[in-house]
């Protein structure tokens, strides 16, 4: 499935954008209360959505050369106009989707894909590896009860030209301003983090230290890794271990939301009661609660999906190895049988 690529290929740099808009209002498909979240979940479960990423092609323009992938959607969902869509997306578009989702759902764990420099080393077929990673990414989004209903996803899957939509995200400067504000707030720190999140934090710290050892192994690997190991088990392993970064970011954002709320409340208490402020504080408190519970749910979802994915990958590795041995066994046994039948025929060389 690989197209002909010119020798000089300008592969996009990964931009890791930490996006915070000034008003983090969860209006984008996100529920305003825990109960409506459950309703939405139930509704969308009944509608189907299939997405495939394939057919990479290179595009040459005056300025640059890049690769696009065909994204095909088949759906029976009512919020989509048709039942089938086909669009072409480049790597940057996927990044946009991810950052938009992260922006709109700051305390949900959005799957990360392909960190530059790690995967490349296994496989000559970089394009194919990336395609697979993008496919997994979209599968994860599709499976996520909240994210799958995101309008950004719909736009990504259906709009022929993504450019006008991409422009709607806040400009770099406003993003920067928002980030700075968040940073200053977070410096104050969280007063009392709920226990479950402390445990989560600890886990995430430990997980990220595992990445170092995995990375060390990758760099000492010879390129002749077994096909199956490098195409199935290792990417799954890496995906989840790479998530440590995402998890850290999510934890941080949750902390920030809590910090913002606490800061506001403190300010209110110091200045005395003012109705408007009280409303704000109330809203922030609700926000904290919603974020916490959605994160909790997402967290357990993520962990169970990690378990399932790993189990599947390990089972498939074991199965694959067993099949390999069975094939070898069949060959050798056939050979032995033929030798015993031939009897007097002379063989002069071994066949390892």
């Amino acid at each position, binding site marked *: 499935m690989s197209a002909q690529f010119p020798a000089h290929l300008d592969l996009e740099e990964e931009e890791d954008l930490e996006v915070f808009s000034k008003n983090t209002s969860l209006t984008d498909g996100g529920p305003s209360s825990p109960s409506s979240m459950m309703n939405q979940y139930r509704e969308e479960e009944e509608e189907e959505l299939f997405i495939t990423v394939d057919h990479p092609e290179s595009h040459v323009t005056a300025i640059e050369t890049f690769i696009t992938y065909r994204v095909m959607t088949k759906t029976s969902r009512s919020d989509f106009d048709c039942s089938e869509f086909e669009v072409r997306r480049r790597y940057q578009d996927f990044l946009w989707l991810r950052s938009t989702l992260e922006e709109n759902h700051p305390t949900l764990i959005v799957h990360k894909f392909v960190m530059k420099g790690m995967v490349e080393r296994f496989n000559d077929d970089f394009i194919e590896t990336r395609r697979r990673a993008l496919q997994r990414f979209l599968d994860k989004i599709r499976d996520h009860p909240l994210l799958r209903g995101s309008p950004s996803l719909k736009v990504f899957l259906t709009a022929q030209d993504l450019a006008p939509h991409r422009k709607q995200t806040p400009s770099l400067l406003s993003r920067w301003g928002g980030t700075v504000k968040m940073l200053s707030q977070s410096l104050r720190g969280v007063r009392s983090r709920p226990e479950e999140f402390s445990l989560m934090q600890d*886990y995430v710290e*430990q*997980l990220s230290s*595992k990445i170092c*050892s*995995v990375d060390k*192994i990758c760099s*000492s*690997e*010879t390129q*002749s*890794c*077994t096909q199956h*190991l490098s195409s199935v*088990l*290792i990417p799954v*392993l890496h995906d989840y271990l790479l998530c440590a970064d995402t998890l850290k970011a999510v934890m941080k954002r949750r902390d920030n939301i809590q910090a913002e709320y606490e800061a506001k409340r403190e300010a209110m208490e110091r200045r005395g009661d003012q109705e408007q402020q009280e409303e704000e504080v109330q809203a922030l408190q609700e926000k904290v609660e919603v974020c916490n519970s959605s994160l909790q749910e997402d967290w357990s979802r993520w*962990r169970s999906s*990690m*378990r399932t994915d*790993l*189990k599947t990958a*390990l*089972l498939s590795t*074991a*199965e694959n*190895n*067993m099949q*390999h*041995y*069975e094939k*070898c*066994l069949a060959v*050798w*046994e056939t*050979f*032995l049988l033929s*030798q015993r039948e031939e009897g007097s025929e*002379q*063989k*002069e*060389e*071994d*066949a*390892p």
Partner: protein
Amino acid sequence: MAEDGREESVAADDDSQHTAEDGRNGLNNTMVEESPTLLRRMEICVAEAEKRSGKNAVNMQETFTVYLIETRPMDALAEGRNPAPDSLWRRYSEFELLRNYLLVTFPYIVVPPLPEKRAEFVWHKLSADNMDPDFVERRRVGLENFLLRVASHPVLSNDKILHHFLTEEHGWKEVVYETGFQAKADSRLKALSATFRVRNPDKRFMDMKHYSDELQSHTSQLLRARARVADRLYGVYKVHGNYGRVFSEWSAIEREMGDGLQSAGHHMDAYAASIDDILEEEEHYADQLKEYLFYAEALRAVCRKHELTQFELEMATQDLISKKQQHEELSTGIVRTFSFKGMTNKLFGQEAPEQREARLKLLEELIEEGEEAVKDKTVECEEHVEKAWVDMQRFKEQKDKDLREALINYAVMQVSMCKKGIQMWSNAKECFLKM
């Protein structure tokens, strides 16, 4: 022979190694049964290896390995007695000396080769160091094999020097040198020149030589390919080990998945460790291939000897013809072919009759000698051809049987390895299902 076969070899616990050893013992069994040789009368084995230090020829300290050769008379064993074996220590260089002696003394025999002097076709883990215990062990087995093959050879086994080698520890070297075999050795240069200049070598020998070239090239290609595959396989298995470590470490921080991850890690580790046994097994077969790689050289040596004797015969015949011609010219005065003498005669006149007589007389003597030489050389050549042909046939049969058996045993080993692999991964699968 079967029992001591097991006694000589490394203790084997698992089945696969057992079948391979049985294969080799079968080889030894055949050696005993088929030929009425030394091996029938005497049980021979190379039991141990030891490190020694001493001073070498240039009076420098060196370490070397000696091997213990044990012999016991067969009839004693047959009677049920179990006498203590006679034993002596020999080092590799003494084995070499023995073989060189045999090569010179029996130039029409395809002399069994010694195990390699230095480790070749090494792959990743295998050490190229002559002192490495694995190498020493494999060499011990190879030396024993050499002795068994020599002792079961219909011609070689009767040699006195061989007996001496096996029974008298001291003074053997002097005895060997006294035979003067070194003087009888053909010079390399002579042999090489014969190869190029011989006109009518026996076609069968040329075919045999051609065959030995092919045997050598095929076996060495095979061994090289095998070394490459072993390297790659080793790498692949070890990668599994690395991931096993990751899984084990990771399992420590997981709650629900902890057990599953730990067992995954454990299985990966076990899989990675299994490659060591596999490759060690394979080394045994590689050694058998190597024996035939070196045998090809021995076969070629016999062919070269034929070329040499044939060439010497041709030279002697040619010499005789030219002398007869000279005689004829001298006696009849008719110059048939261009000769220097003929020319000088024409230029300076014929020589005096007395001188002519003297020369004729000399020529007649030389012709007589020459005829003797031709007769001798003819006999030598024909004898060599006859004996060598017999031995080459014997060798061919032995080779066909050995390689075939080795191949089958190799296949059997592979089958057992595959089964083990299947078992291992199906166990792993069981664990994963419980995750």
